[in-house]
């Protein structure tokens, strides 16, 4: 498989639109658990990325530089908890795709593994803390294992996203530990974590994007 830098940018643009659509839903989840701004924060961040894609990044050919810029732009625009987390994710991902204009399945797998591990390292949260790590850690584990097994990106990524979805759903039954909602204790049970939700949506958006491309390609 081949994934070009323009496709990478197109994907980021599709996240922009997806986040706009999910903004209210993400705020609603955060309203129940935290300070209610998660959708707003994600929207501010991705709108800034859109700006960047339409300007500085318009002629950028290096996938690594695109990913670095996406991470930095997001961080500058939002700060917040998710700023450093996503920025670290995209910057770690950038390392493995730098100087490349076209990515193959191996590159993509390594990109997302580095991304997920970067977030984990920055946030120091564990599975069960009711954060986006509940989505990302199972996702990373399955992606690593299945890509090793299959040596094929899309099938491995598909199963990894499913594992992420499971992880996301599991946050419903968890008590908050990290982030602004940790005070909530017992009462946080029953509501899905907003950060885990948006993380899943971003991964799933990538799956759909790549799948539709490969269908077209066939």
């Amino acid at each position, binding site marked *: 498989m081949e994934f070009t830098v323009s496709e990478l940018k197109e994907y980021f643009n599709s996240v922009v639109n997806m986040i706009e659509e999910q903004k209210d839903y993400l705020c609603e989840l955060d309203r129940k658990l935290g300070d209610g701004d998660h959708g707003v924060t994600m*929207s501010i961040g991705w709108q800034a990325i859109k700006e960047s894609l339409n300007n500085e990044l318009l002629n950028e050919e290096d996938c690594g530089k695109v990913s670095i810029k996406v991470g930095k732009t997001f961080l500058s625009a939002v700060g*917040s908890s998710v700023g450093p987390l996503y920025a670290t994710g995209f910057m770690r991902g950038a390392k493995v795709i730098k100087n490349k204009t076209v990515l193959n399945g191996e590159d993509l797998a390594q990109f997302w593994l580095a991304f997920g591990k970067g977030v984990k390292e920055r946030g120091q949260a564990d599975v069960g803390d009711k954060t986006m790590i509940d989505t990302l850690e199972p996702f990373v584990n399955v992606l690593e294992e299945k890509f090793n097994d299959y040596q094929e990106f899309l099938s491995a990524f598909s199963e990894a996203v499913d594992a992420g979805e499971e992880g996301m759903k599991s946050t419903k039954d968890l008590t908050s530990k990290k982030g602004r909602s940790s*005070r909530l204790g017992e009462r946080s049970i029953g509501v899905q974590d907003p950060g885990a939700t948006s993380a899943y949506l971003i991964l799933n958006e990538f799956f759909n994007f790549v799948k539709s491309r490969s269908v077209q390609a066939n």
Partner: protein
Amino acid sequence: MKKLINNPKDVVEEMVGGYVKAHPSYVKQLPENERSIVTARKTREGKVGVLIGGGSGHEPGFMGYVGEGMADGVAIGNIFASPSPDPILEVTKAIDKGAGVAYLYGNYAGDVMNFGMAAEMADLEEDIRVKAALATDDVASALKEEKEKRRGIAGEFFVFKAAGAVADFGYNLNDVIRVAQKANENTRSMGVGLSPCSLPQTGEPSFDIGDDEMEIGLGHHGEPGIEKGVIETADKVAERLVHDILADIELNKGDKVAVLVNGLGSTPRMELYIIFRRVEQILNENGIVIYRSYVGDYITSLEMGGCSVTLMKLDEELERTIDHSVDCPMFVQK
């Protein structure tokens, strides 16, 4: 909720813009980053720089506390969101007078990460020594056994005041941080929420609460508290808040405290003084001496309704920090 704003996405920029125009003799925006504000007055070479920051929507916290006797600069985030490392780093560079910079902020995941990243950058890229002290005064936010997980709320004011004062006295960076940490360790807050605020971008109430309900331990971004109950009289509320504080910090007869009754935004001063009245009675009954009291809106959450009570136990060093004069746009003490 109705708001006097223009485009919701511009509220922070426009607020900051208005702020620096309103107080040009106090503060100025850095050309490098509009979310970076520093004192407009000359500071002494060799003075430890005091940097505060956090999300906006808490005004006077945090930008209102830049000035003589408090902070030298502030990094301003989006509403209820930590600032990113950029404005923090710019302020750090601007206020370093060769003696390093003390970062003071509340213990929130986002702030820890962003200030942490900025501190690393200051060290690596700018060779500026940075040390941090985090406020963890909110008793309701975690059990005593997990005190280090607690969030900072109104007690941040005392931490800023203490560190700001000793930085003025000429303390070095280690000592400024030591005093800030001591102030924090001696400070406890408990809040109660009556009505929500709303983010300009969503217009949604930050939490749901019945017409006859109050929420004990509510976080100052509208995070749910530890207990929802039927609204009580001011005296009962004050008793509950002080009780939870006294259960968490040892205060003996003759001990001196500074008291802060802080309004969350829309609660009138009338009610804050009615709360204070009972707080004073309880402390008095326990032989605890009030050294100085602060009553008003010190750290808010937009138009949230409710208040918090904060006590800081004083030793002689902290007394001197309480006495020290301050001249900021939103807080002045002679």
